[in-house]
């Protein structure tokens, strides 16, 4: 297989779902079973992505395959290009997207059966897969932004799929707008990059940074650029403080939640951060780590008390994404991506499992009405349990490996820099995760059924729904990533498949442990190293990771077991009266139940503020600006009225006055002209006498 055919396969992977979208949407009304076409195409995409990953990882494992073409040009020096970048991360991510997308398609065939817009649903899944593949494949930041927005569109369409429901329409709008806030930051970052480097391509930008060219010639602005770009990730990956859209997005159909709002789209933010990892400075990474930490912690505390099965999973997603982001912040690049992949599988499994439960319970989502479903839904229960073990971090699962890696990294980060807070929060969140997941399992599947009517009608899902669950649960087992169930460090996933990150930010701006030892001796070597962007983690880091490994492993195992044990004590064996406990810490409980009042806060400040401002502006517009216009018209009319009066009475009056005076004089003299000869003679004589007297 040549590079060319690899590019061609990627093209097919990218565009087939788009074809599916167009055909399914346009013919959806006419042909009832056109959705099968979309399902067929996505199956091809899945096969293609497997072929691609297999070839890339076997024959081109160390290569970066880049292909570019011109999109449009403004002048000879201003050419905008589109292009692909295929490295191992790309093909793995493509496989994850294609696999989950395909499974979700299959699952939806049964789950969405009978919906009046059945075909349109599959069309939307097609455009989502297209846009997501675009994000994964791109080699430049502008193209990433383009697909980024398209993903936002498909998310909007799918969240609001049942748009007759006001809450669904609201949630779609909220998701799009909150994402846009992050996107503005990302776009500003893109503007800075283009201004500085006159290109959008990641590689070219990195090379330029390697040669010491920085935005506005300062380290500070490089950090700012990194943070601005990361803002896109804050929006898309639902990180604090923009996390509020994700729980609401659960209004969409459940398979969509699994695909978009758990496994792939929300991971796009993490993927973006992985892509720009090379230009991040220590300051930017610190910012990212703090955001990740907060996003891991806050939603975990919220998930403890939620009663909607999907809401629990949604908050858990935000929390796990926070882990990944935090991992990137503390420099654990590989583990971040590893967790992205493992999380995608087990979280998709959890969501599809919840879909299966909801389907069985006839669209009941409140776990307080469930219970005892273990007997009715054995397969769903088994897969849900495996995934929950994975997310809680129990050995033999994939989640244990990736999460343990992240926790060890925070541990190492603490010992290297003195910021232990990340490790502390990391373990705390792990504890909470184990607890709320098993709270969910116990209330949903164990115990006695609470709603007997619905329980009686519950039934295990058909094959098309069960198969995806089984596949995803299987992928949550360690063996796919490493032969050693207790450590992934030597496994093929971390050593062979994922390359070490390339670091390009100036040496001095990186964390100490990310500067290579050689760099410090001569500047020359530093330049050389950063151009080639090879591994620049120091020996110190490797040692710290090594010594962090065992403590972190045992501690994480301990907190996971403790969390699960507590959940059993509370909900299975009911040794503690949970309601009483909740009552005794009422304020805290309510704070968590009401999601820290974020929605209320944003609503009162931003939304109300914006609407108020718009009202004021419109009032200003209608009253002042337009008032001046109408006022000047009024003034002109008044002046005209006055001028009219002046004209009528003064100017014309003067004319009339003259006429009047003339007439008046005429009136006087008219009396002289009597036409009688006698009068004239009298006047002549009279005049003569006067004249005689005078001279």
């Amino acid at each position, binding site marked *: 297989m040549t590079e060319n055919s690899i590019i061609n396969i990627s093209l097919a992977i990218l565009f087939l779902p788009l074809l599916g979208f167009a055909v399914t949407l346009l013919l959806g009304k006419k042909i009832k079973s056109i959705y099968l076409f979309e399902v067929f195409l996505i199956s091809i995409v899945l096969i293609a992505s497997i072929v691609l990953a297999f070839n890339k990882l076997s024959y081109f494992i160390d290569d970066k395959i880049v292909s570019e073409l011109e999109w449009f040009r403004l002048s000879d020096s201003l050419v905008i290009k589109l292009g692909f970048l295929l490295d191992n991360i790309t093909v793995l991510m493509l496989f994850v997207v294609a696999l989950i997308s395909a499974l979700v398609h299959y699952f939806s065939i049964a789950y969405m059966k009978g919906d009046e817009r059945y075909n349109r649903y599959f069309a939307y899944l097609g455009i989502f897969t297209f846009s997501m593949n675009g994000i994964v494949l791109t080699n430049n930041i502008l193209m990433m932004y383009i697909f980024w927005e398209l993903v936002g569109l498909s998310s909007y369409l799918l969240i609001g799929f049942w748009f007759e429901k006001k809450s669904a329409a609201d949630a779609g*709008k909220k998701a799009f707008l909150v994402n846009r806030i992050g996107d503005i930051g990302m776009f500003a970052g893109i503007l800075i990059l283009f201004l500085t480097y006159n290109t959008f391509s990641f590689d070219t930008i990195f090379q330029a940074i390697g040669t010491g060219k920085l935005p506005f010639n300062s380290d500070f602005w490089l950090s700012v650029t990194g943070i601005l770009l990361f803002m896109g990730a804050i929006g898309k990956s639902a990180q604090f403080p923009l996390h509020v859209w994700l729980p609401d997005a659960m209004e969409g159909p459940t398979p969509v939640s699994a695909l978009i709002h758990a496994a792939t789209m929300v991971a796009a933010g993490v993927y973006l951060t992985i892509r720009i990892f090379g230009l991040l400075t220590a300051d930017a990474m610190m910012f990212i780590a703090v955001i990740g930490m907060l996003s891991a912690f806050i939603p975990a505390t919220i998930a403890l008390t939620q009663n909607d099965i999907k809401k629990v999973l949604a908050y858990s997603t935000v929390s796990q994404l926070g882990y990944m982001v935090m991992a990137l912040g503390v420099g654990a690049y590989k583990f971040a991506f590893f967790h992205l992949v493992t999380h995608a599988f087990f979280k998709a499994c959890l969501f599809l499992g919840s879909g299966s439960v909801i389907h069985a319970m006839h669209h009941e989502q409140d776990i307080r009405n469930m219970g005892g479903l273990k007997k009715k839904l054995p397969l769903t229960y088994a897969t849900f349990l495996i995934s929950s073990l994975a997310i809680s971090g129990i050995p033999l699962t994939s989640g244990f490996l990736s999460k343990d890696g992240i926790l060890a990294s925070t541990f190492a980060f603490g010992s290297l820099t003195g910021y232990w807070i990340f490790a502390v929060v990391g373990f705390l969140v792990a504890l909470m995760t184990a607890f709320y997941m098993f709270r969910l399992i116990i209330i949903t599947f164990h115990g006695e059924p609470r709603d007997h009517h619905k329980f009686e009608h519950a039934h295990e899902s058909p094959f098309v729904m069960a198969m995806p669950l089984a596949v995803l649960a299987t992928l949550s087992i360690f063996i796919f990533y490493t032969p050693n169930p207790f450590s992934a460090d030597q496994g093929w996933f971390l050593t062979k498949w994922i390359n070490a990150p390339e670091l390009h930010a100036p040496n001095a701006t990186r964390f100490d442990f990310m500067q290579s030892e050689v760099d410090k001796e001569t500047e020359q070597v530093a330049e050389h190293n950063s151009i080639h962007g090879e591994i620049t983690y120091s020996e110190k880091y490797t040692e710290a990771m090594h010594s962090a490994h065992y403590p972190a492993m045992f501690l994480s195992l301990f907190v996971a077991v403790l969390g699960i044990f507590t959940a059993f004590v509370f909900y299975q064996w009911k040794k503690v009266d949970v309601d009483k406990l909740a009552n005794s810490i009422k304020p805290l409980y309510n704070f968590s139940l009401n999601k820290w009042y974020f929605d209320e806060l944003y609503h009162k400040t931003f939304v109300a503020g914006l609407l108020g401002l718009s009202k004021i502006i419109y009032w200003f517009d209608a009253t002042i600006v337009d008032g001046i216009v109408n006022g000047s018209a009024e003034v002109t009319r008044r002046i005209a009225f006055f001028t009219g009066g002046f004209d009528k009475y003064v100017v014309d009056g003067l004319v009339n006055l003259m006429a009047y005076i003339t007439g008046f004089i005429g009136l006087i003299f008219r009396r002289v002209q009597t036409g009688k000869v006698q009068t004239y003679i009298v006047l002549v004589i009279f005049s003569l006498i006067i004249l005689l007297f005078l001279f």
Partner: protein
Amino acid sequence: MFLLLNTGMMGVFVALDFFLFYIFWELMLLPMYFLIGIWGGPRREYAAIKFFLYTLLGSIFILLVMIGLYFSSMETLADGTRVFTFNLLELMNHANYTETGILSPLNPNNLRFIAYIGLFIGFAIKIPMFPFHTWLPDAHVEAPTAISVILAGVLLKMGTYGILRISYPVFPELTYQLSWYIALFGMINIIYGALAAMAQKDFKKLIAYSSVSHMGFVMLGMSALNTMGISGAILQMFNHGTITAMLFLIVGVIYDRAHTRDLDSFGGLGKQMPIYTGFVTIAFFAAIGLPGLSGFISEALVFLGGFGNGTTRILTVISTLGILLGAAYMLWTLQRVYLGSLNEKWKDLTDLTTREYFMLVPLTIIVIYLGVNPSPMLNLMNASANAMVKFISDAQGIYSSLNAF
């Protein structure tokens, strides 16, 4: 009437002679007045008069500057005699000006600054630029659908076209000096128009204010004075023409059927009129600047251009808020009218007719095509945009040396 209007519009866009330009500019006013005044809505007379007089006010400024320029410049005829000229190409060359003309750069006491402002206001009314924009919502709300489409799609472009065609080449040195202010008004248009749109209850008025906002992008792009900015501005002029035309047609479709434009009285039309709503979604997202649709490319170019020029950089960053506000009011509208549960009152509304397909489909194709492949448009305008940029930057050296005299 309509054909007369078309003559005027075509004339304005092809004229290379200032006098001819002015004639066509005025010619176009009159039919518009009658079109709104006779076939408009309940307040048609008010709107028509407001439109007419407001634009005429602008025309006075243009007329004055035109006459001033005429008496300040000479062109050489074929037989060698030199006469006063209206020819814009001649007006571009500083060597053609007389030494005593009041608008001649060679005259140290020239009034070019005032003339530039006057001319700019003349065009700004047409764009319409804040604070001269209030005729627009009134004219749109009262005008029949077809006229709104023409008004927004073509007439508004004459303002920005005029600036690019006349103000920029004839007064390059002032354009350069005042570019920050042009950008400032562009930014105000974007943000202010978007906020005002958000407060509307009348569908058509909302679209009218969105026009104000979108024309702000054109001004912002023009002010950048670099290739990306100017290309973006010209492309945005075109794209705004197609997108806004679609938006007004969409309003027209619903007004034809429901005889109301009150946003809050609708809801759930997506279920009742699915195909229509499909077009609405495309048009709305194009207006928001969604990649893959034409609006994105021009907005992105405008931002890249604006950011590339140090003078307009900060204003450009503030303007990016416009893309958030734009999304906010558009999606809010989409939700209020098309999503949610169907208002029982409207359950008899029918989907698009063949005639309406004929109007919307071509526009949709253009919007999508240019969003995916903008090259055909950009290739047409690249030469002029680059020439304009070069002319203005070259002119700086020439004009500053003139002032040294």
